[in-house]
């Protein structure tokens, strides 16, 4: 990602900076001391010639050092559309050390990681949860099996026997209960289970633990995959885990031990935990090292795995030692309507008109340079396990958009090309962060063609977030990940009756209300049968696609590349885009998943 950013900067720099200055010969005498000097000195012709000569040399140098700037960007769209020929070579399944792109994401225990970046995947190296995720679904982990009471409020987990903490203490059901109770008082950064889901946790015997829920919650097991069990014998004496940066804090039951962590340089080294209960590690040690540009570092062999953008694919296509696989598109931009502030947006025909008028394919081609998939109005991306392919589709159709607006009574009565009704104009402010201005400008262009006026207002990212929270916006764009997680987010984001959790960016904030969706959401949350629940989620997508409470603009696609002669055991969790974040990527796959419960 960063390398493409530099490229864009380079191109901008070349066209808007070097060439005007060098070729037109310094038109900036009024703002810089150098200008003044030259102006005063009235350079001789000779000097001017020299200057131009040097500038040309410099331009050439920049072009050279930037590599094939033109070539790369010219081919980007083509390569994105091409399907990748699969590399069929067999790769290495065992390795002593894997090097990955590092960076400081905090001390890897649940209370001290940073909220930005992949800190929780570092916690996953050291700590285990009761259940884990593989490519298909939820698999047993510290819990070998579980029974659910018929009303769905009691879960009895049978814990694996013989599990010990990395300091030699045995792991028991008490640790599970302790973790829950402890996290009621000290809320962790990630993996905590929100208030109101679990009523209490009981230890039945050292290997059996019972969770009693306040009400049935279909998402409970999914939430447990992030719930990392911490050791009672260590944390019971810690009153403030947020400042617990001792090496004891990373005593876990997981496959790796934290061998070294350096905050200032952003390095982590994890080594195999010999006391680990589970499958052998296939990667004996994982080292995260700082890189300035992960693509260059990968080419140089400093790291063994990298994410690459489609415009750099060509560099590796012919390399038989590199496997390139597309990541699932689980990161995306969403376009929000504020129906509370702009009551006319409560008319779903207007929102549908937006969906027809915004050319999402154009955004993918022009902004993401082909590296994306246009958004579905049913919200879930195509790569989501529960994506409903039979939902209303909205192609780019300005005429239909116009017709919908006219039908809703919005016409241009005063000839200013902006539709109006009873003196009110369809004119909005679109808030976004400064990195998304180009998206906003394209949308503005398309909307103006159907008579909707938009002013783009660029904010600093945090200010925009503050506006989302307070509902202080008319239209807004925000980008975030996690689109592959449990489909329950359709309920928490778009139902304004979320009983269970306090949601930070829920429908209530921007005034969306749909009784059908609320009813489906309530049913989905109570439904413990996966097949039946999937049906409900399918229905929810159809309701959403008809009603358009928000418009997913596009989901970004990225590629993973790794050197197969080094290590080839990478796998994805079904709900997550990053292979390096899955603990199973580093382990033998010997039959844990076969015990999957249905």
């Amino acid at each position, binding site marked *: 990602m960063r390398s493409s950013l530099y490229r864009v900067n380079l191109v901008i720099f070349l066209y808007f900076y070097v060439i005007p200055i060098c070729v037109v010969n310094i038109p900036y005498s009024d703002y810089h001391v150098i200008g003044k000097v030259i102006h005063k000195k009235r350079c001789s012709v000779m000097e001017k010639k020299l200057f131009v000569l*040097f500038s040309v040399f410099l331009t050439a*140098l920049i072009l050279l050092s930037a590599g094939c700037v033109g070539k790369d960007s010219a081919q980007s769209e083509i390569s994105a559309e091409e399907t990748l020929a699969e590399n069929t070579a067999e790769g290495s399944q065992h390795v002593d050390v894997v090097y990955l792109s590092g960076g400081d994401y905090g001390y890897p225990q649940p209370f001290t990681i940073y909220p930005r*970046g992949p800190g929780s995947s570092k916690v996953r190296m050291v700590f285990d949860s009761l259940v884990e995720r593989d490519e298909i679904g939820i698999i047993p982990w510290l819990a070998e099996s579980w029974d659910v009471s018929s009303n769905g409020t009691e879960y009895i987990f049978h814990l694996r026997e013989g599990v010990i903490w990395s300091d030699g203490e045995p792991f028991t059901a008490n640790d599970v209960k302790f973790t829950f109770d402890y996290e009621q008082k000290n809320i962790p950064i990630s993996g905590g289970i929100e208030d109101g889901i679990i009523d209490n946790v009981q230890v039945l015997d050292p290997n059996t633990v019972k969770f009693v829920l306040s009400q049935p919650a279909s998402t409970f097991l999914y939430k447990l995959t992030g719930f990392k069990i911490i050791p009672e014998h260590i944390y019971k004496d810690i009153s403030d885990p947020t400042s617990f940066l001792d090496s004891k804090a990373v005593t876990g039951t997981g496959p790796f031990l934290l061998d070294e962590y350096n905050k200032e340089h952003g390095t982590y080294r994890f080594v195999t935990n010999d006391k680990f209960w589970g499958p052998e590690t296939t990667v004996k040690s994982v080292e995260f090292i700082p890189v300035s*540009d992960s693509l260059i570092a990968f080419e140089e062999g400093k790291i063994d795995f990298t994410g690459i953008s489609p415009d750099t694919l060509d560099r590796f296509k012919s390399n038989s030692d590199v496997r390139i696989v597309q990541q699932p598109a689980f990161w995306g931009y969403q376009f929000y309507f504020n129906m509370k502030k702009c009551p006319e947006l409560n008319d779903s025909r207007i929102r549908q008109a937006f969906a027809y008028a915004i050319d999402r394919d154009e955004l993918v081609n022009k902004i993401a340079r082909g590296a994306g998939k246009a958004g579905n109005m049913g919200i879930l991306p195509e790569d989501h396990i529960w994506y409903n392919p039979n939902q209303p589709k909205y192609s780019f159709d300005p005429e239909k958009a116009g017709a919908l607006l006219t039908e809703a009574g919005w016409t241009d009565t005063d000839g200013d090309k902006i539709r109006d009704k009873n003196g009110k104009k369809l004119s909005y402010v679109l808030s976004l962060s400064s990195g998304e201005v180009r998206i906003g400008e394209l949308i503005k262009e398309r909307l103006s063609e159907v008579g909707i006026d938009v002013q783009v207002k660029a904010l600093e990212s945090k200010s925009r977030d503050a506006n989302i929270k307070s509902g202080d916006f008319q239209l807004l764009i925000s980008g975030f990940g996690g689109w592959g997680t449990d489909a329950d987010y359709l309920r928490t984001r778009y139902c304004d009756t979320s009983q269970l959790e306090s949601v930070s960016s829920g429908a209530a904030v921007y005034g969306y209300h749909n009784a059908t969706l609320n009813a489906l959401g309530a049913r989905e949350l109570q439904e413990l049968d996966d097949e039946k629940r999937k049906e409900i989620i399918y229905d929810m997508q159809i309701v959403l696609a008809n009603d358009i409470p928000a418009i997913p603009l596009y989901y970004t696609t990225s590629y993973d590349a790794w050197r197969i002669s080094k290590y080839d055991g990478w796998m994805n969790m079904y709900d997550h885009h990053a292979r390096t974040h899955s603990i199973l990527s580093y382990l033998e796959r010997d039959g844990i998943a076969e015990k999957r419960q249905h």
Partner: protein
Amino acid sequence: MEKDRNSFIFRFLSTLFVILAINFFLPRMMPGDPFSTTSADEVGEEIIVMTEEQRLYYMKYYGLDRPLYEQFSKYMKNLITGDLGRSIYYKMPVRDVIWLHLPWTMLIVMGATAISTISGVVLGTVSAKNRKKGSDRVIMTGMIAFAEIPSFLLGLILLLIFSVYFRLFPLAGAVTPFANYNGPAEQAWDILYHAFLPVLTLSLSQLTGVYLLTRNTLITVTTKDYIRTARAKGMGEKTVWVRHALRNALLPVVTRTGFMIGIMMGGVVLVESVFSYPGIGMTLRSAVINRDYPLIQGILLVIAVSILICNMLVDKIYGKLDPRVRI
């Protein structure tokens, strides 16, 4: 003398107080709070979105739910005891975070200041002596071309040339990861080796200013009467240039060097980001993005104090160089 010193200390302390107050209130006036992030900062970035319950818990935990004046008086009280508070994002004492990152920035800023000042003065002198001759023109043109390259781009070019194509220097970082050193000499070498490109980038971006200043002041100074007098006294050309011309021409250069450290503190963030160098600039950037109030306050305070100290030092050196302004 005593009165002067008192008023000086008073001025220093009142400046410091104003800085402290601005450092405290400005970050808190920015929209948002440390826990209300809902959007990623760049494409593909993952964030943990906190629930309202989590947000309130942490606001309370860090005392951000208290009224502002109460937070401010607590901050001032802690500051007097030398406690800068605890970073919300990094979960460590602010003092430790600064202590981890500031030395790296100091290293490259100091290195770059020294290199750019010395080579700027040398080149400026060469240029002024050979005014309107070939070497002056070549240096001048080269310098001007360099001046307008943004430092991140310059860094990127150097990185591509020296690290990627010629493989002479490391790609990133300040030390070799997980290195085991045989003795401090090897460690020092490793640090210098990693610091080379960042220092070079920063030096080149500052060089032109020093060069032009030296050249132009020298040219002005050499037309003065006392230079003619010195020459008339039959002094050697070398003595005239070093003792009479250069000494006088250096005064503005010294002033500029003092300011430059402050300017570089701001500009260093781009260089740090290109070389992923673990300096304070990147830390400040992330502190601002994440609204880490205690850390923003701490870093700004350290930068402000070091600029104040630099200015004081400049005053002292100035006095040494120019007896007329000695107090």
